[in-house]
């Protein structure tokens, strides 16, 4: 079973090396290779769930990788969304050109994220974050349109600031502990009951700012509302659904729940930034007329929920936060792929020009309703349960005001998403779109898979939380 870890890491880069040859054989060969290369890591990850036990380690070319419940949860998220996006992209990428290059870059992004989740070294985590990020910058600009390139440059510049902050933080940790390996760091930096050294407090602040920027937490969010809408739809789905969580939330979780000693102020910072992001992201989303831009702002709001769950300091909040990571990846990817399908057919993202599309694009319309109900936290969809856990965690922690705000923002989210649904899919069909047809089969299949996952995760939430979420939360509470 340990060898699966190696295959999860190796399959995407091997496929990247084969991609130029596959592309020369034809689109069908590139599509097949891409889907297999995205599907195999998902299969291996799912096979690892029952075998995980107390954790697994694997040595690849002398490099040590390890898997625990926290990594496993995020691996499922990354590879499930990447597989759906790859299926979708096989049709979508036709109008962009450069099919093989697109698949190769997407697979490099997946490799970077998977390696981030499996490494147990802080500097390697930074390096693999850069691998995923460099692929992301190019993919945002892949359409070669002016707004895409401009957004990619903005994304690159702000990410460079983020990674510089992270790098200085890593340097400070190394100067204090003399190692960058997670377990050794945890032991070396374990609290002795005295005050936390000033250098570690500075490192903590740099990590929050650096990874907060990667997670697009307010006030470090400026790049996201430009980068996510301008990117091709499968990349928007990967960025909002997966990248901000692994590059931001996973790194924060690993550092503040496993490496750095207990710093009480960090939880308070998480609560403040989380509440700010949750409210401001939702309010800003309401005022957008660009479909994808609205979804991007809504991602900031949902990241706020996750941060609040992390900041509560109890198991319920942590389970809610991790479950929301899982759920948000599913429903936000679904919604971005839906918006991409609409843009693919209509050629616009302007909500005001749409209307009545449900009759022309029934699959996209129906699955979009699934996504809306999930993100708004309507039972029995998955978003309901994770938000419920976070709200219950807030009440258990005595944070009644935050719990109340979380409920109100959830209702507000339902409100503006219903408005979007009405403006895009329901109401009178705009005459301009009389001849519009449903998105191609591969794109429809991808959104059906994600919509089904949103519903099934909600209906069988107990199995999901027991199987992969709770074990991860327990590890984090134990600080291992």
């Amino acid at each position, binding site marked *: 079973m340990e060898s699966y870890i190696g295959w999860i*890491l190796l399959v995407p*880069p091997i496929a*990247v*090396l084969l991609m130029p040859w596959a592309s020369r054989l034809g689109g069908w060969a590139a599509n097949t290779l891409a889907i297999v290369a995205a599907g195999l890591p998902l299969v291996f990850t799912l096979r690892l769930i029952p075998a995980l036990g107390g954790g697994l380690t694997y040595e*690849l*070319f*002398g*490099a*040590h*990788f390890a898997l625990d419940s926290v990594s496993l949860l995020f691996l499922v998220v990354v590879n499930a969304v990447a597989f759906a996006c790859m299926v979708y992209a096989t049709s979508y990428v036709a*109008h*962009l*050109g*450069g099919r093989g*290059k*697109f698949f*190769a*870059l997407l697979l*490099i992004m997946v*490799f*970077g994220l998977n*390696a981030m989740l499996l*490494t147990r*070294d802080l*500097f*390697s985590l930074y*390096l*693999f974050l*850069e*691998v995923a990020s*460099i*692929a992301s*910058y*190019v993919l945002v*600009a*892949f359409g*070669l349109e002016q707004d895409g390139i401009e957004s990619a440059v903005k994304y690159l510049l702000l990410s460079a600031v983020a990674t510089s902050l992270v790098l200085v933080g890593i340097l400070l940790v*190394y*100067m*204090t*502990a*003399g*190692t960058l390996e997670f377990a050794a760091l945890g032991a070396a930096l374990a609290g002795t009951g005295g005050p936390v050294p*000033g*250098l570690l407090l500075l490192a903590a602040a740099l990590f929050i700012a650096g990874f907060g920027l990667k997670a697009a937490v307010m006030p470090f969010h400026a790049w996201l509302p430009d980068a996510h809408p301008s990117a091709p739809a499968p990349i928007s789905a990967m960025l909002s659904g997966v990248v901000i969580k692994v590059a931001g939330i996973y790194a924060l979780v690993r550092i503040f729940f496993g490496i750095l000693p207990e710093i009480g102020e960090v939880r308070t910072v998480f609560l403040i930034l989380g509440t700010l992001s949750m409210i401001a992201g939702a309010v800003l989303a309401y005022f957008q007329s660009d479909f994808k831009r609205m979804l991007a702002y809504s991602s900031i709001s949902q990241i706020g929920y996750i941060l609040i769950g992390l900041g509560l300091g109890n198991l319920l909040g942590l389970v809610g936060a991790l479950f929301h990571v899982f759920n948000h990846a599913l429903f936000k990817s679904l919604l971005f792929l839906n918006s991409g399908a609409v843009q*693919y*057919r209509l050629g616009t993202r302007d909500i005001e020009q749409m209307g009545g599309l449900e009759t022309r694009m029934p699959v996209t319309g129906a699955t979009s309703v699934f996504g809306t109900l999930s993100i708004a936290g309507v039972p029995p969809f998955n978003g309901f349960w994770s938000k419920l856990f976070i709200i219950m965690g807030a009440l258990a922690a005595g944070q009644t005001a935050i719990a109340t705000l979380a409920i109100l923002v959830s209702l507000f989210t339902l409100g503006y998403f219903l408005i979007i649904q009405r403006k895009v899919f329901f109401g009178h069909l705009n005459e301009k779109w009389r001849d519009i047809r449903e998105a*191609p089969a591969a794109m429809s299949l991808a959104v059906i898979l994600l919509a089904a996952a949103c519903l099934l995760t909600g209906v069988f939430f107990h199995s999901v939380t027991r199987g992969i979420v709770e074990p991860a939360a327990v590890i984090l509470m134990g600080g291992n």
Partner: protein
Amino acid sequence: MLLWVLLGLLVLLTVGACVFRDLLYVAVSLALVSAVLAGILFHYGANIAGVFELSVCAGLITVLFVSTVGMTKDSDQGDETRMGRGFIPLVLLVFIGLDVLILRWLGSALPSIVPGAGSGSFQNVFWNLRSADILGQVVLILAGVFGISALFRLKVKEKKHE
């Protein structure tokens, strides 16, 4: 004293790379940044890192950069800077002030690096201790190659969706 001169040069050349409008000057400025950085690394006894910085960053990357600029020179000579002339010097002054404050604080507050940290021969560190990073760097190069070929591909003509 030498260190401060090198650090000053580093800041000036970095700013130069940001404000020059001719991409060739930018490339040369970046190459000089790498060369000065290599000097700083030598100053601290990080000789291997210095050699890497000099050969890969100041050498190889500059060659690639200048070649790329040469290929695309005609299309990017436009005057695109819209920022006020006083903006960059102002930002520069603020950053220099912050740098001085932070360096003074770090100088007094930093403990020495933990004894024994990072010990071992270069071969041991490179091939055994940091082998995961080699894997990452190989894929990083792949990302660069595919990224450049993707961004420099011919844009497909707008075609109607079927």
